[in-house]
């Protein structure tokens, strides 16, 4: 530093310091400069003036919204330097312009807006070269435009002499418009040049760092924009939005965002990206959208209609513009949600990077700031992705928000809901637990958890805990109290189905009934309470009472599919098959694609109208299946997008499909084991399908399960018609889909029996049981075969096990009676026969439990 620098080197050093805003080094450099040549004195004055002005502004920054405070003694010195530089007129043209611009800035700081404008009009700023200009000068020009805009806004419009166009038009309205246009042009130019300056500055800096390594380089991140550049970058769009001119505001936002980012603009970009996303989501729609590379529409509903008469247009050009993102295959959004998402992902990555992790009290404020800016972004992401049904992606995004989430209820809750919507139930329950901890008074949260526990998870013990939480809230839970009882009733009802001991089953059934009754009395207008009460009564074979409540449910909600289904089953239990079929047909007119109803229809038809009719229904089901699922275009296999995927998210369809699919067509009781078996089935068939190419494509299994189920129903009808060949063909179709399904194996066993191959049938039944050890229907058939083979005690054992699993299966009781009779145990046999008889009298055509139970 002490060595004297040669002229050009000194000049580059000065240029560098000015570009990097190292004002403290200027006085020393000026001293060296003036020591060289006398003509440099004017330059020295200019530099000193600039340096003092900038230092002053650094120490006394102007705040947004506050006016500058008038003359200050320190500024007098600046004025003296600059006047000296300007007056002598020895400066080169470039420097002279710089001096004028600085003078204008000084006047603005002192509050002399007219004087400032006077200085600016002396320099034709439009002609100042941007190409090849030193970096600092770009900043100076940008600031000058911003300052000019500020001055124009301050000086009343009534003085046209100061407008640099000097039109003096007679129509004052017209001149206001012109003036507004001038102001905006100033700011827009300022903003563009500012972006260019920042890009150039960063380039120079990185080049500088590479060239001279050991020098204590300036702390790069210290660079701040300052009042003038900040105004220049933002004021234009602020005015556009204030005037209700959304089209231009959006256009301006996009211009700023398309410019290649610099370190200094990161925060600005984050804010603007978020604001633009907000506008896209709150103020635009698909039809009023135009893409960032298109011209905006000339007439847009987005703009304030009262001002639409005079659209402000962009009417300037710059010799050099900031660099924009370019290259091949750039993604350009074509839709408002796409653009909003892109912007939000960018803001999210920045907000995430700024997450304050330390929890010491000193950083409390920082943490709140980082949390706020992030949660706004996550809320907007939720809105955008929710609209498009992309819950899976949303849950991944919200998971990233977890670093902000310590003790933040909103973020936890949103994550839980998104996991739930994305079908990630187990994780959702875990997160809901944390939500409950943070907000123990909200009954919705435990109810959401019960919903998952009862539904996809089948975690009944946990479900019971959650439901009890709601009930324990008592009166506080208000309208949710009834829902709490409903939930616990469902838990007990499902537990009763699962229980392997009869006493347990009865205990749970009693508890379930009590809970449903409570729910029904608390909320007599809720059809669900009446319906589940009816269903529970039906399961415990109190048919007349159940009929009463199901009618009540139907009065409250006339077209509820499950109530109608239950009504039909209840009628079939009373052996009014024709009435039941009528009800089913009525229900099908409202729910023509409900497979659950159709299964029952097949059963009732083969009972009342013969198997041919039933076969027609099976065919119809296949047609529905095809039209329902074949619509999906395989090429659109984006995640979570196809109709098949969406079918999973659709609660209505889950209700209609999951449970009956893998409950048995015969015994129907959905046991925990049979659920596990069906999971094994899923896993196995996935392996199988990955091995053999003929198997169905990968993807969600529900539609394929439904298809298999239809084939099995058809096979059953054929068996009842004693047509083993056709039945085998149908079973084969199902087997292609799910080769290891116990239902398929059971059906093969029946066909073998039909053909008289007792040994083969036995083998199939044993295989079916090895997959699902509690499949009652198989146990009954196996028991019968063992009976035929005269292995009485083993047969008795199997049948007793079957009765343990499902105590209401009358045919099992009957078979058990026969076995006992064959063993000579007449007394026990009689008892069994009586039980069978009694149960048969109230037995529906399909078990009541094929009706899904869900919250």
């Amino acid at each position, binding site marked *: 530093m002490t060595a004297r620098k040669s002229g050009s080197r000194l000049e580059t050093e000065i240029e560098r310091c000015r570009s990097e805003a190292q004002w403290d080094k200027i006085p020393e450099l000026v001293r060296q400069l003036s020591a060289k040549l006398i003509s440099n004195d004017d330059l020295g004055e200019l530099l000193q003036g600039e340096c003092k002005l900038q230092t002053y502004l650094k120490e006394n920054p102007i705040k947004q919204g506050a006016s500058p405070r008038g003359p200050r003694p320190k500024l007098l010195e600046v004025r003296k330097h600059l006047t000296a530089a300007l007056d002598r007129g020895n400066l080169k043209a470039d420097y002279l312009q710089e001096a004028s611009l600085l003078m204008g800035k000084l006047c603005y700081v002192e509050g002399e807006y007219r004087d400032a404008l006077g200085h600016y009009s002396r320099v034709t700023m439009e002609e100042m070269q941007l190409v090849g200009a030193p970096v600092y000068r770009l900043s100076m020009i940008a600031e000058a435009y911003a300052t000019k805009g500020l001055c124009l806004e301050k000086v009343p419009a009534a003085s046209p002499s100061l407008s640099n166009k000097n039109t003096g038009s007679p129509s004052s309205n017209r001149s206001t418009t012109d003036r507004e246009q001038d102001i905006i042009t100033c700011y827009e130019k300022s903003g563009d040049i500012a972006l260019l300056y920042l890009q150039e500055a960063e380039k120079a800096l990185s080049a500088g760092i590479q060239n001279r390594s050991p020098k204590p380089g300036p702390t790069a991140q210290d660079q701040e924009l300052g009042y003038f550049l900040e105004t220049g970058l933002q004021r234009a769009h602020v005015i556009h939005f204030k005037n209700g001119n959304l089209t231009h*505001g959006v256009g301006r936002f996009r211009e700023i965002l398309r410019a290649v980012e610099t370190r200094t603009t990161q925060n600005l970009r984050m804010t603007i990206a978020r604001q633009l996303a907000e506008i896209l989501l709150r103020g635009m729609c698909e039809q009023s959208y135009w893409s960032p590379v298109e011209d905006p529409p000339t007439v847009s509903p987005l703009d304030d209609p009262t001002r639409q008469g005079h659209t402000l247009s962009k009417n300037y050009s710059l010799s050099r513009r900031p660099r924009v993102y370019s290259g091949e295959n750039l993604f350009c959004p074509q839709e408002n949600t796409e653009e909003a998402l892109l912007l939000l992902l960018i803001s999210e990555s920045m907000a995430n990077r700024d997450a304050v992790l330390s929890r010491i009290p000193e950083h409390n404020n920082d943490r709140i700031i980082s949390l706020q800016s992030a949660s706004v972004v996550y809320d907007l992401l939720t809105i955008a992705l929710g609209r498009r049904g*992309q819950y899976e992606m949303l849950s991944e995004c919200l998971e990233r928000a977890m670093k902000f989430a310590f003790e933040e209820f*909103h973020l936890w809750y949103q994550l839980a809901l998104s996991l739930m919507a994305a079908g990630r139930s187990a994780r959702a329950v875990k997160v809901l637990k944390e939500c409950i901890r943070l907000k123990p008074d909200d009954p919705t949260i435990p109810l959401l958890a019960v919903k998952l526990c009862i539904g996809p998870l089948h975690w009944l013990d946990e479900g019971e805990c959650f439901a009890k939480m709601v009930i324990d809230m008592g009166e506080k839970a208000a309208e949710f109290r009834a829902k709490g009882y409903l939930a616990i009733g469902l838990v007990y009802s499902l537990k009763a189905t699962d229980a392997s001991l009869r006493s347990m089953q009865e205990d749970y059934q009693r508890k379930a009934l009590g809970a449903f009754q409570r729910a029904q009395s608390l909320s007599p207008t809720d059809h669900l309470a009446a319906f589940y009460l009816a269903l529970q009564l039906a399961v415990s074979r109190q048919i007349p009472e159940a009929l009463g409540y199901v009618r009540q449910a139907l009065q409250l909600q006339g077209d509820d599919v499950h109530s109608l289904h239950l009504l039909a089953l209840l009628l079939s239990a009373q052996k009014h098959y024709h009435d039941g079929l009528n009800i089913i047909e009525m229900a099908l007119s409202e729910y023509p694609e409900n497979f659950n109803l159709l299964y029952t229809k097949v059963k009732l038809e083969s009972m009342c109208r013969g198997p041919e009719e039933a076969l027609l229904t099976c065919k119809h089901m296949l047609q529905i299946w095809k039209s329902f699922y074949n619509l999906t275009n395989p090429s659109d296999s984006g995640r979570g*997008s196809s109709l098949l995927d969406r079918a999973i998210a659709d609660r209505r369809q889950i209700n209609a499909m999951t449970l009956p699919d893998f409950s048995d067509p015969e015994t129907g009781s959905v046991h925990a084991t049979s659920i596990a*078996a069906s999971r094994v089935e899923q896993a196995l068939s996935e392996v199988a399908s990955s091995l053999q190419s003929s198997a169905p494509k990968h993807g969600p299994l529900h539609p394929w399960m439904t298809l298999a189920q239809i084939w099995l129903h058809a096979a059953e009808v054929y068996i009842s018609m004693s047509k083993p060949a056709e039945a085998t063909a149908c079973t084969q179709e199902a087997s292609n889909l799910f080769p290891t399904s116990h239902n398929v194996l059971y059906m093969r066993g029946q066909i073998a029996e039909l053909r008289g191959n007792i040994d083969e049938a036995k083998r199939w039944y044993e295989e079916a049981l090895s997959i699902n050890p509690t499949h009652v229907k198989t146990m009954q058939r196996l028991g019968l075969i063992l009976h035929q083979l005269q292995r009485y005690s083993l047969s008795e054992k199997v049948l007793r096990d079957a009765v343990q699993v499902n105590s209401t299966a009358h045919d099992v009781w009957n078979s058990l009676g026969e076995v006992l009779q064959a063993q000579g145990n007449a007394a026990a046999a009689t008892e069994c026969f009586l039980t069978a008889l009694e149960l048969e009298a109230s037995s529906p055509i399909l078990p009541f439990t094929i009706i899904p139970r869900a919250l």
Partner: protein
Amino acid sequence: MLAMDQGVVEEWLSEFKTLPDSAVSTYAASLKEKGSLVPAIYKVIRENYSDLLEPVCHQLFEFYRSGEPQLQRFTLQFLPELLWSLLSVSAARDPHNSGCIEALLLGIYNLEIVDKDGQSKVLSFTVPSLSKPSVYHEPSAIGSIALTEGALANHGLSRVVYSGPHLQRETFTAQNRFEVLTFLLLCYNGALSYMTCNSLQSLCQFSSRVCICGYPRQQMRRYKGISTRLTVTSEFLVQLITGIHYALCNGEVELGSKALDDVLYRAQLELFPEALLVGNAIRSSLHGAALKSNNKEGARSIQVEITPTSSRISRNAVTSLSIRGHRWKRHDAVDLGSPDELMDISEVDEGVWPGVVGPDMTPPTITISNSITTLNLGAKAMKKCRLGGRNSKDKETSPLTTGRAASENTEHAVKRLTLTSSQSVPKAGALTSLTRTASAVFSRSFEHVAGSNAPPSTNHNTCEAALYSCSLQEEGYLSPAPNHTQRSPSISVHLGSDL
């Protein structure tokens, strides 16, 4: 209905019929000037029994069919009112008088679900990805993007269908009603910017009524109309919320916030996660923004201000960015640096596993931990997994282990039928603790819970083919005790509870 209104509507009805095709677009533009027409049509729709309803519906459908965007929007503006009319009539179980409205709505639906060539329309959009350059960013500037399962699976842009293809519908049934209505609302939301205040207000009122009728809140809102509960679906509510959000931000603050409240109330009662999610987000994002009810016609309340560009976060706070370069102590390491370290850790693993599980550890257990770690960790951890996989295979091939495993398997098979749930508890516990230890070694991140969500497909896909037989055994002996999955997250991996 006043005679004057009737006159206006009748004039409108006759006018369009005589219009030559060439004049349609000028006619469309002139509709805005007819100030009394729109309120008169609203009246016709509200008074269900008016004789004019049928010709009005017919004409609205003709407008929509014309394909002229302005005429289509003219029809769309009545959509909320028409939907309410349809739903309230069907709830009152009065089959009359909604026939023409049904026909109009089904007509619009059937027109909208096909494209110009009559093919089923599929509405799709591109999910942007930060890993692909765009007009707004360069991937390199974003820095490292978390290597989550989803991020890896969707490296690059993916096109996603959000609506369609839809089936043509001839009639409304209970099953398809909300599917059709949801799609119609989607069309309405696509033209929100063109909707008048009247229409937005009608949307808000419609939303409130649909959600509260028949519930205790109906008294609070003092709405006297039908009092039966109307069924809704979550998707339908999400579409309603989208419209309400627009109304809220564009002048209808009071009605809009009331409607949002009511929809959220219903979503809570119905336990609809989707509607709750979006509704909560809107409520929270508008919480800070002061919404001004502008009395000026059509005024938008979107405002921006100049914001400071410097970071508001103090420099000495520990942030995700500042922590990125930090190196952790080795046993916490997620990011395994050199191959040496990799070996070290796998040795530690070898030490830990048998110790925790006890001597009767069988190969299948290794499969589990592998699949879990694959999900949680990045590429380096995958390498590690392959290492573990090889270990387990080695074990399998050693005669002693295989023999023991085989005998155990038969034991399990024998036990299977008789095994009660309580007997399998210790097994489940052991597996959990194994998984915990294993994943704790890899990372202390709380994500290890995430492993429990692994769908079975991933399990199978990530494992080597040789291990399939093992996983079958697991499932075989675990199946009698599925209730325990709740306490042992690792087990739900095999059972795939999350499908």
